[in-house]
């Protein structure tokens, strides 16, 4: 079920009403949440529901067993079982074809042809998210950082919690699971702020991301028809599309959970204002980057095994992160670019400041923020080319086009900046992006929801009504236009 669908518009009000009716009885409430979450998932394909149940079952049992045994070998074996099943499922559904293709291609390099067909495998929605969530639970118990739960219902509800089931935020059991043991009182302000966040997420997704997608899809799906300026515009628009798409989803997820009294972790924090790539990753997909930090980077040794090893660890983490996003070389390169730039940032971290001091540059003033912000945005966009392009050849073609086929005369050419869009659509995208970033910048200093609550009734209600109307009128939807969230494919 998509958040931006009519099905969900009917599903959620029913769920929320029943939820608050049964909320005082934990057992009943968790049972209801579990059923609702399974219905939500089964709406897409009921067969894959068994994977979630299976994954939940394995980690629930492994968690309990891990707690009962102190024998190191047995504990390792138990952890292995969890890793084997969770990563095994992930590997099978997500990477089998990628490795078959890579295997066949590598043979062709030696002039040999292998006739191995790829398998017809459907990627279950959200598998990368919920396997990481259950894995973190088992690993935390293995590390003695968490006690397992005996409440299977709470655990199963935690794994399948519908607001964040298919695209995160990837929650830690230590944060989310205990929330299933509590009861909540209906808090009007909290519910209202949750719904506002949902509306804001829908605005990002339906008004900005899906409309930008028209342009981006046209250019990226027909690369040979366009030149450097078109590629540049499409890549910049993709940067906003993917941000609004994914952070929009996270906002909706956090907002929905909040309406039921749950608190999900923040997943995005205005990443495009970052002055370094390190900062960018502290602001972008926070739940995944912290997951990789805690469960991959630190186990690899983190920064405690010398400089060279630190750089290598960083690089490995980002290559794996790329692979997590998708089983394709383009995603690996995307991860590698980030890994490389982060390595450079880390390597130059200590020499950068003295150089700036010598040059008399104040790194804290606005113009410097802007300068470094633009550079980081440029690097991020360059990496997005690989993330979005359909093939490696396409991404190389686009990068080449941006640097060698950039016709300045096309910058203000309507035919270039309106590809697939009508002039008013283009205006709506630009105005919405300006509105979004103004709101986000203000939100860094002030709590906008609190600020809104302090306004008079007429202003508040006008705002609520306007945001609904803006989504209804300017959003992209309809039987042919509805777009899935980009991160559903991961």
């Amino acid at each position: 079920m998509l958040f931006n669908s009519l099905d969900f518009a009917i599903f959620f009000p029913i769920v929320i009403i029943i939820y608050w009716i049964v909320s005082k009885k934990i057992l009943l409430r968790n049972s209801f949440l579990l059923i609702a979450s399974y219905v939500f998932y089964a709406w897409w394909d009921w067969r894959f529901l068994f994977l979630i149940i299976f994954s939940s079952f394995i980690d629930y049992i492994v968690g309990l067993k891990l707690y009962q045994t102190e024998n190191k070998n047995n504990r390792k074996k138990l952890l292995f079982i969890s890793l084997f099943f969770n990563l095994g499922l992930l590997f099978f559904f997500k990477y089998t074809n990628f490795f078959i293709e890579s295997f066949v291609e590598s043979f062709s390099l030696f002039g040999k042809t292998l006739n191995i067909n790829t398998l017809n495998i459907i990627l279950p929605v959200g598998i990368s998210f919920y396997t990481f969530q259950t894995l973190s639970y088992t690993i935390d118990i293995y590390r003695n950082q968490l006690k397992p739960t005996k409440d299977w219902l709470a655990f199963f509800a935690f794994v399948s919690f519908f607001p964040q089931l298919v695209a995160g935020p990837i929650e830690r059991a230590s944060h989310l699971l205990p929330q299933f043991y509590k009861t909540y009182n209906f808090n009007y302000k909290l519910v209202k702020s949750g719904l506002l966040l949902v509306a804001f997420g829908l605005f990002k997704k339906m008004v900005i991301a899906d409309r930008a997608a028209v342009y981006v899809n046209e250019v990226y799906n027909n690369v040979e028809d366009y030149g450097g300026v078109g590629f540049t515009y499409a890549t910049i628009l993709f940067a906003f599309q993917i941000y609004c798409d994914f952070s929009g989803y996270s906002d909706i997820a956090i907002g929905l959970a909040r309406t039921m009294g749950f608190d999900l972790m923040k997943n995005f924090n205005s990443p495009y204002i970052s002055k370094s790539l390190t900062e960018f990753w502290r602001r972008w997909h926070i739940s995944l980057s912290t997951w990789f930090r805690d469960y991959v980077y630190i186990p690899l040794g983190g920064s405690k095994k010398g400089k060279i090893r630190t750089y290598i660890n960083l690089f490995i983490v980002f290559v794996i992160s790329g692979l997590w996003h998708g089983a394709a070389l383009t995603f690996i390169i995307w991860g590698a670019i980030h890994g490389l730039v982060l390595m450079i940032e880390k390597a130059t971290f200590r020499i950068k400041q003295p150089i700036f001091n010598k040059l008399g540059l104040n790194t804290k003033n606005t113009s410097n923020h802007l300068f470094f912000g633009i550079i980081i945005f440029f690097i991020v966009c360059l990496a997005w080319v690989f993330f979005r392009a359909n093939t490696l050849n396409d991404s190389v073609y686009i990068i080449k086009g941006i640097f060698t086929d950039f016709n300045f005369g096309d910058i203000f050419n309507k035919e270039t900046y309106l590809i697939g869009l009508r002039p008013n659509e283009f205006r709506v995208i630009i105005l919405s992006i300006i509105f979004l970033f103004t709101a986000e910048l203000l939100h860094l200093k002030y709590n906008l929801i609190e600020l809104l609550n302090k306004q008079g009734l007429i202003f508040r209600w006008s705002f609520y009504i306007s945001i609904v109307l803006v989504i209804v009128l300017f959003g992209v939807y309809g039987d042919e236009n509805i777009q899935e969230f980009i991160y559903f494919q991961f």
Partner: protein
Amino acid sequence: MRSIVIKIVLFLIIISSLLLTIDSYFLDSTNASVNSFNSLYEADKNSVDIVFIGNSHLSKGINTNIIDAKCNVNSLKVHAGGIQIAQIYYNLLEILKHQSPKVVGLELFPLVHSDPISNKLFNSKNKMLSKGLKGEYFKRFGIPKYKEITLIDPKNTWYHMFNFFRFHENWMNLERVSKSLQNRFSVSAKELNYNHNKILWYLNSSSIEGYKKRMFIKKDIYFSEAEKRYLKKIIVLSDEYNFALLLFTIPIYEEYYNKVKDSIDNTSLKIYNYAKEYKEIKFYDINKELGGLSATYIMGEKVSENQHLNYKGMIKTSNLLANFINKEYNLKPNSLYINDNTVEKLIYNSKKTARDTSYLGNVETVNAKNYRDAENKEVITISLTESQVKLEGWMFKEGVNLKRGSKIIALKKGNNFVYVSGKDLVDNSNQGKSFEKSGYSIRINKYMLEKGRYKIFHIIKSHDNELYLQDMWKWIVIK
């Protein structure tokens, strides 16, 4: 908790009311079919005596102003392009929510048309066949709309139910939206429909040649079982709502008609015979009576099995139908709802009226000939070699500001053909120089008029839609 529920309910009520209020503005009111539905909603409840239902043939074939004028009734036509009988049935359901007509006239082309959609009505999955944007959207929120949409697209019913969802992206073309809104607020939907269907061109020679050369398949012209089912449903409604059912045809192009004559006449007759079994029904086969119409009565379109009438054809057909209604029905209309303020009402059945001395004006020239120079000072003859009629003159009515009002010319032939000018009449500053904006000029293609003697009338329409008529006592004769 109570206050929260009240707040939520209030919020939902405000949002829903706002959306429902603006819902109808998402439809393009430059579209004739949209206006036909809007005219239904604009009419007072239960004020209409006769309702005509059909598809684009009805739209282009019947002028309700003529029916109203000649039959002294309040009539309405509700149509949408390319719709089939099942959709017409739902249109009728929608009409009956608002009106209780005494007569419902069903134009038979949707039942006769050889198009597979019109014949089959439903596909193998029992989904109603429909061509794009049709009557389902033009209806207001309600049961007929819901039922029709669930048959056409059951998966996306709620998306199609609300125009603010379905057409929410109209803002992309603001020029069109502004034109549509301007239309909506300037004149009545009935008048918009009238103007939209006033087609002043006819079949050109290459189309005529095309019709001569092309062979048309007769076997697809038949009265299918599915069509029977829906015609019966309409008959059932006629009993339930107590209205008389009139079946009639609108003429098609004679060249095409002659090629498929047997099939069309037989199918029309079969339809009538089928309907007759259930109810006493009147049937007027105008097409058969006229034997189709010649090229100058038909709108210039590409060669196909689907021809529409132009303004000339519309005048002719509407007059015939009005005469038939007068002869066959003894309607007792409610005088409260009869609109006396149309040009047609003033001119059809007009009696000699005293000359209004505050109404000045003259028809100065016809095809550059002055009436003074004509052999008969009151008549100018348009010779066989002339292809157009160009009238120049002026009109002025004391107390009416012509900057805000408009000038109209009507040419009346007997009581069965009146040509009323529209956008073809333009200001002419060379005429009536003493009175600002009083000069006019109009070019009428001679073939848009029938042969015969036409009396010329001047009409001034004031800003508040008051009409002033002046008989000019001048004639033109079309050879």
